[in-house]
């Protein structure tokens, strides 16, 4: 436990803004987390939490109207935000790769699977077309696609959704990257196919010793694949901890709320406890804690002063006044149908 892990990626105080018709919107506001080498970190949150924007910020793939305003993204000590476009391109698909939510639309319909995997190899490894095609076949084999010699010549529309996501993974892993960012990689897939893909990612991660950033809204996926988890709410990380602590001893009222509202298929639950209200509009963020309007234990102070992301204990961070010295409110909460005191 005490063994110090080498961090391959460190995100510090990331702030990403978007120019919209209603004015500038801070989609990501002060996000910090680390990715230990060879581990999987989950970024979990609901729609609008900024989890996808965070991942796109890392690879500098934001849409035209978005930009990173502040913060640093240290990849092996180098700040990605300071690189030239050319240097950044050399990292994309080579040292840091990404797969996306929609395998149906994420592949170019007019090129064969082989051409698309080869392209990555040719760009980064400077090898011949023939050699790249040969390696593409190997990659398809690696991701468990049957008869890869045949598949390599097929177009994306000839493959099922699960197969396409395998192709995406083959493409992402072609250059043996150190980090794989998986943005909701199984959300669009059926559950039996999801199981195949998650199994594949886990297996390849072990074999290739890479780090994975798993972006998802599904707490089940988090529990099964991640070592560490950052929970995001309204553009901020509200809780960061190892996965066991997050599920067994969650601290932030939002994390508790998520676990309480999740209908489970593995146990019977009496009643779900939803989080009241809804996510604040990015144009109209609460001045204090962003979760305060929905928080069951919020005090007056929560509505006026924004809490910081503070370390509490070993490798655990939390953004909540409840864990500060001066907290005078309630600290009894319900989890999995039981009352418990979270503070301390």
């Amino acid at each position, binding site marked *: 436990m005490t063994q110090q892990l080498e961090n391959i990626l460190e995100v510090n105080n990331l702030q990403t803004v978007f120019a919209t018709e209603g004015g500038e919107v801070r989609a990501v506001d002060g996000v910090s987390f680390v990715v230990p080498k060879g581990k999987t970190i989950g970024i979990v949150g609901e729609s609008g939490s900024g989890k996808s924007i965070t991942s796109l910020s890392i690879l500098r793939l934001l849409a035209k109207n978005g930009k990173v305003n502040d913060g640093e993204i240290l990849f092996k000590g180098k700040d990605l935000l300071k690189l030239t476009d050319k240097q950044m*391109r*050399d990292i994309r698909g080579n040292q840091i*790769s990404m797969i996306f939510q929609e395998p149906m639309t994420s*592949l170019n*319909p*007019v090129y064969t699977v082989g051409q698309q995997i080869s392209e990555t190899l040719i760009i*980064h490894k400077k090898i011949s077309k023939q050699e790249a095609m040969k390696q593409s076949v190997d990659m398809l084999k690696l991701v468990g696609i049957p008869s890869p010699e045949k598949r390599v010549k097929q177009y994306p529309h000839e493959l099922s959704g699960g197969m396409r996501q395998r192709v*995406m993974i083959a493409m992402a892993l072609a250059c043996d990257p150190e980090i794989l960012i998986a943005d909701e990689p199984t959300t669009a897939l059926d559950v039996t196919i999801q199981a195949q893909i998650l199994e594949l990612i886990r297996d390849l991660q072990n074999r290739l010793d890479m780090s994975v950033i798993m972006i998802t809204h599904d707490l089940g996926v988090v529990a099964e694949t991640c070592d560490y988890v950052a929970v995001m709410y309204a553009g901020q990380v509200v809780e960061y901890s190892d996965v066991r602590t997050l599920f067994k001893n969650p601290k932030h009222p939002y994390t508790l709320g998520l676990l309480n509202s999740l209908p489970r298929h593995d146990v019977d639950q009496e009643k779900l406890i939803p989080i009241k209200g809804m996510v604040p509009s990015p144009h109209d963020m609460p001045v204090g804690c962003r979760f305060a309007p929905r928080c069951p234990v919020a005090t007056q102070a929560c509505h006026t002063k924004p809490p910081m992301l503070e370390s509490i204990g070993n490798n655990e961070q939390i953004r909540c006044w409840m864990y500060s010295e001066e907290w005078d409110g309630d600290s009894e909460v319900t989890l999995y149908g039981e009352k418990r005191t979270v503070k301390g």
Partner: protein
Amino acid sequence: MTKYIIRRLLQTIPVLIGVSILVFSLMFLIPGDPARVMAGEGASEQTIENLREKLGLNDPAYVQYGRFITSAVKGDLGNSVRSGRPVMDEISARFWITVELSIYATILSVFIGLIAGIVSAVRHYTLTDIFIMIIALFGLSMPNFWLGLVLIQWFALGNLPFGMDMPAWLFDIVQMRPSGWGESWRQMVLPVITLGTGGAAIIARMTRSSMLEVIGQDYIRTARAKGVSERLVIYRHALKNALIPVVTVIGLEFGGFLGGAVLTETIFAINGMGRLTIDAIRQRDFPIVQGTVLVISIIFVLVNLLVDISYKFLNKRIDLN
């Protein structure tokens, strides 16, 4: 693929039959007795009767159509009422002039339209984009007979606006010459611009919107995430997809040029099919009108077929069966 082409060719047959019926009935859609109309005012009853007999107008309509279609298939579209020469000869003498004009106009509009459209899309919402789109709007709204006349005024006759002087080399290129079409490439410059401008504008707008749509697609983001350079993202990943709808427009445009060169040909005194048609209509030379309309329709159908086939090469998703 071959099967697809054969099937599509077979499918054009009903279309062509429909076209031929329409063309054939042109003669009957005009009020009055076609023979009387053709013979002109003041013709004697006997002349009209003779003409009627000669054209077979006394037979029932289906017999006349049968005769029309059987000879048409053999390449015989009858004789011109005015010149007495076979319609096919009259048309083939003019046909290639119009085709040439249309091809050049298509090349021009594709060249300008694609570049303008791509630049506009890549520089979306910048001044360049706005400027290009305003020009395209002008190009689209200008009637081409008006554009033709203005071009003649300015360049061929040298009456530039605001008393500007035209450089001699430019004048040398575009001045009006008494000689006919085809003798010098210089003859083609103004007519091709006249005919191609509207098309260039349409292609520019189409390319732009198609590019913008494609640039927003997930696979473009995938390409960027792979480390593909921005230039290749545009040319390798976006353009090939964006061109799919543009190809249809180009094909339709070429067909449109063939049929729509009438005004341009009239203004620039080019002896193409358009002129032939207009003159025939004016002189009530029905066999010629039928012939030109039929030929243009057939070309239009064939161009459409070619567009559909080129789809197959561009878009792998279309299941031809």
